[in-house]
Structures are given as C-alpha cells and as structure tokens.
C-alpha cells in the first residue's frame, strides 16, 4: 500500500509555500536577476572595441584598410591621429583599447611582400581581451593582405575557422545554460535543507516525530513539493533564457524538461542530506551555498574547462551534478542532442541523485 502520510505532508508543505508569497517572489526573481547580471555583465564577446588609428602612410591602401576596420562590428574607430607619440597617452586615458599604426612605407611594403609593416598595440592590462583584439586584427589583415598580394589569383591555402553550434561566438549561449544549471542546484539544495532545518528550529519536527511516521515518508513528503516548485522555476528561467537571450533550442523541450526533473531531484537530495547534519536554518543556508555554488561554478566546466584541470579536480568534477547537467542542457539546446547521445550522462546524474537520497533516508533519524 502506498503511504497515506506522504500526501498530508505534501499538502502541508504546499500550504507553507502558498502562505509565504514573499519568499516565492524572491525564488522567481532571484534567478531573473542573476540571469541578467551574468548574461550581460560577463560578456566575453568583444564588440565595439574602441580603436585608435595612426595613419602615417596616407595612401589608398591604408585608407582601404581603415574603411574595412570601420565597417567591422567589432571595432569603433574613435581616434585618428598623426603623431605616434600620442599613443601612450591614449591608453593611459583609457580612450582606446587598441591602436593600429600604418607606417609611412605601408603601401610600398605591401606591394613588395606579404609581410606588412603594420603596428598593432593592444591594452595588455586586460589580457583576455588583448589576445582577442590581436586575433581579430590579425584575421582581418591576413585576409586583406592575401587579397592584395595574390591580386586575382586564388591563394594557395586559406584557413577558415568555423565555430560549430555557436557560430557567432555569442557568450550568452554558453552562459545562460550554465546559469540554469547553477541556479537549479542552488535553489534545490537551499529549499529542502532550510525547510527541514526550520522544522527543527521551531520544534515542529519534535511533534512530527512522535507520530507513527517513517523516515522515507518525511524525506519524500518534503522533497516532492519542492521538486514541483523547482521545476516551475526551471521552466521559467529556461523559457526566459530562450526568449530574452535568444539561446537557440535545437533539441526537444520534452527531453530537456525530463532531464531537468532528474537534476532537480539530485539537488533536493543534496539539500536533504545537508538537513540531516545541521540544526539551524542559517547553517543549512551556508552549507547549501558552499556545497553547491562553489563546485558548480568552478568544477563543472561552467567557467573553466574540465580537461585543463589537474587530475584530482577532474575526479571531483565527476561527482558534481552540474557537470552532467551542463553537458545535457548545452547538448540539447545548442547541439540538438537527444537521449541517444545523452543517456550515459543522464544515467550518471541519476546515480548521484539516488545515492544522495539513499544516504539522506539512512541518516534521517526519528530521534531528537
């Protein structure tokens, strides 16, 4: 017979959720806020880079190049000057992120050989963007110089890099799925650990424990309502990411939502496990954040590629649920993966969830 005590526990939990609209609002607004902050502030695209141009050559060839730079969406030509001595001042005043200097014999050199005397200076204080500036400029000039030097005839070899699945290098397409993974595990663990800690703090756990309830009933009665709530939040933020940040959906929503349920279940299991070792809401909150936020940001492949981590950290990343969900959500949304490609990952993630919940049930004591 199915337990008759899980249903009343769930009903009670839904009443708690309904009677606390403020917390509910925060639960839905916090992800939105984080999505905006991460989605816009951590923008790894380089567009509209402020560029300075020092044209000493003043030839049709240099003017041609400058027109190309101006037309590029990556650069805004903000300063044009003749005295190379001003260059440093421009950087110090942070008027430009990079400058391009056309030497006096630019055109002649271009005609003579493919090695073009062209100066590119980038602001190295932001190494990341400096590298990208350099790459963008190199790419641009390489194309140009090849066109000019070969003058009509096909160049011998032309390398063209193409970014699969994210051709425009939109960082939102990588970031938004990552935030979904991060938020869901954080909210899931937080919700359950805090709600059980609250019962311990208020003494209501004592009153529940003197009833003929069983550990698995308490655990499931707590987990299911928050699974529903967590799923609601998940759908909300994924639709938001899809519509607002235009993250493509190349796979099937149904697979994504199904795997999402598995992921939230894993998050709740972590929360339940935490709740068996803490006595107060505050400690529950701290522990949940530490246990989910840090590994999910650092070790899941969200920010740093797992392949470049030291071996011990790679092992740890294998038990971080977000690692698997990131593969799942990026796979489905960006690559159009389905169960055929993702089943090993889903199985690993489910395994972690089942393990956590089993430990939580085992550790949950019917004593004070």
């Amino acid at each position, binding site marked *: 017979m199915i337990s*008759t*005590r899980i*249903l*009343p*526990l769930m*009903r*009670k939990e839904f*009443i*708690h959720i309904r*009677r*606390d609209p403020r917390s509910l609002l925060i639960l839905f607004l916090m992800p939105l806020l984080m999505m905006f902050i991460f989605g816009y502030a951590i923008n790894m695209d380089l567009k509209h880079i402020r560029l300075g141009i020092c044209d000493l050559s003043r030839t049709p060839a240099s003017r041609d190049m400058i027109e190309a730079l101006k037309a590029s969406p990556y650069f805004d030509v903000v300063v044009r000057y003749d005295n190379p001595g001003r260059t440093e001042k421009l950087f110090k005043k942070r008027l430009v992120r990079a400058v391009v200097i056309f030497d006096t014999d630019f055109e002649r050199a271009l005609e003579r050989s493919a090695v073009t005397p062209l100066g590119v200076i980038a602001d190295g204080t932001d190494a990341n963007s400096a590298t990208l500036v350099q790459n963008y400029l190199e790419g641009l000039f390489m194309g140009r110089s090849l066109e000019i030097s070969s003058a009509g005839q096909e160049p011998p070899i032309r390398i063209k890099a193409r970014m699969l699945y994210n051709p425009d290098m939109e960082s939102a397409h990588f970031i938004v799925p990552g935030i979904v993974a991060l938020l869901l595990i954080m909210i899931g663990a937080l919700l359950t650990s805090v709600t059980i800690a609250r019962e311990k703090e*208020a*003494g*209501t756990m*004592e*009153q*529940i*424990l*003197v*009833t*003929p*309830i069983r550990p698995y009933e308490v655990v499931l009665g707590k987990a299911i309502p928050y699974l529903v709530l967590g799923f609601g939040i998940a759908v909300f933020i994924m639709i938001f990411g899809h519509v607002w940040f235009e993250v493509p959906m190349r796979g099937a929503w149904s697979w994504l939502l199904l795997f999402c349920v598995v992921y939230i279940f894993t998050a709740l299991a972590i929360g339940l496990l935490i709740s068996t070792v803490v006595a107060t809401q505050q400690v529950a909150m701290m522990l949940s954040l530490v246990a989910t936020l840090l590994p999910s940001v650092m070790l899941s492949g969200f920010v740093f590629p797992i392949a470049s981590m030291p071996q011990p950290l790679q092992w740890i990343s294998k038990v971080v649920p977000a690692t698997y969900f990131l593969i799942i959500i990026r796979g489905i949304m960006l690559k159009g993966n389905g169960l055929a490609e993702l089943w090993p990952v889903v199985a690993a993630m489910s395994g972690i969830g089942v393990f956590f919940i089993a430990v939580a049930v085992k550790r949950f004591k*019917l*004593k*004070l």
Partner: protein
Amino acid sequence: MPESAISVVNLQKQYGQTPALNSVSLEIRQGEMFGLIGPDGAGKTTLMRILSSLMDPDAGECRLLGISVKEHPEKVRRVIGYMPQRFSLYPDLTVGENLRFFADLFGVPRLDRQKRTEDLLGFARLSPFIKRRAGRLSGGMKQKLALCCALIHTPRLLILDEPTTGVDPVSRREFWEILKALKDQGVTLLVSTPYMDEAQRCDRIALIHKGNILAEGSALEVIARFPGKVVAVFGPDLPGLAGWFKKKLRSEQVQILGDRVRLNLFTQPRVSMDELCAGAEDAGIAIDAVDEVGPGLEDTFIALVAGKEEAHGAIG
C-alpha cells in the same frame, strides 16, 4: 491489561559529562493524573522525551501500557499523545489545518476525524477559531490547540511537558479543568510543571531535582515528609527582620510573604527560635508575633534538596 500505565526502571541519561537522569524509577497507574514537579533543568523534559521514544536512554528500561519503548517505539507512538514544552505547531496553518495534518499523520479515518475535530475544538472552546492561523492565537489558546493535536488520535496516555508555562493564570486554570475532564474519561496523564501550586491538582506527584526523584506520592504524603516546622514572624520592619534571619539561617529558608517573614525551619537551628527572636529584639528589630504554620510543597522540596545535598556532602 497491564496494571501500570508507565513503568520506569533505573533510567539513566547523560549529556556528555552532565547527568540528566540518575537511576530514575517510577510507576504510574492507569487512569491516574501524575505530576512531575521540579525546577528548570531537573530532568523533566529528558524523562518525557525518553518516554515518548524521542530519545534513547543510556541505561534502564521503560514500558508504556506494557509496551517496551526500546523495542517497539512505533507502537508506543500510536498509543500516546505527547505535547512538547515549546509550542510546536505550524503558525502559518490554521487551527483546522493543524488538526487535520496531525490526524492524517496518525492515520485517523476521515469520518472519525471530522467528529473528533468537532468534539475536541468544542471541548477546548476553540470552535470559533477553526479558520484562524495558529500563530495568531493567544498563549493559552495555542496550548489548548497543541493539546487537541496531541489528542486527535484518542491516545490512552498523555504526556504533557510544562503545558502551562508562560500561560496566564485564568487560562492555566481552564487548562487544568480540561485535563481533569480527560482524566475523568479514563486517560492517564503525566504532566510536568515547575509550579508547586499545580501539584495539588494531581493524584500523585514526584519531586525531581538534578535527575533524582526526591519523593513520590500524593501531595499530602509528600508534604508529610517535611522534617521540621514552618514559622511565620510578624513585625513592623519586614526587610530588617528578613535580613536578620538570613544572617542566622540559610537564605533559601527566609522569605518575605505579604505581611510576614516566613521561616522554613526544616532543620533545627543551632539556637532555638526563642533565642533567635530575643537576638533580633536586642538588635533593635521589633517582633509582634510568632506563629507556627503548616508546611507547603515548596518547603518540603527545599528541605529534601538540602537533605540530599547534605547526605551527598557527607559521603563525598
């Protein structure tokens, strides 16, 4: 049917190095209202939690209605009602929702539940508040609701941990009347309280102090164990009088009570009462009259604690 409702044998419990229960043994009969009387930290809550199967003792055995708590905690939980010291219901649930929740956890059938809820709320005079959230009830009403929740599955044994602490005097009296009515219905009650005056309402009591049962029996029987006498001294300068006696006796023996100084002479003072009074007059503190009065439970408690400590000191 077993004779005793609660049978406790040599129960021991320690929190780290601090002993909470020191070889406690108790017999509580069916249908009896039993009071566990003692100050904060005496071990009342520990004993009740062990009885309710919420805690494991270090040693000893307890049986409730013949069921061993250690072997069948889940059976014990079905037949007893337990009301913790702190208000432990959901403040954001209404009176009705709280009752329904506990009825469901105890598996009370739906038809019985409705009738039982109506009866209990009527009995506790909470019917008009069924839709009110528990957090918005007064202190006395909260305790009555907690009692109703503990009674929802019609337990034969009720364990109440300080149900009247922090409740106003009128509500306290009402609460005890409800308990009396339950006893009349045949429910066995174990009630703890720090208030000595409430002990008079119990059939039998046990005085508990630092994990030891000091005395057990009806309130009168316990008071009969008082070893000395209690004296009331009247005079115009009560603080002066009290100060004088405190110099000569232990401070817990002297108490200003209304128009008199009350002396708890559980041991014979080294000098006689007459000499003490003469000494006070000599010191310029006037005494109008000296009367012997009957000892109360509190006097007995103080005397027994002092006796226990002396005995302990003698051994040590």
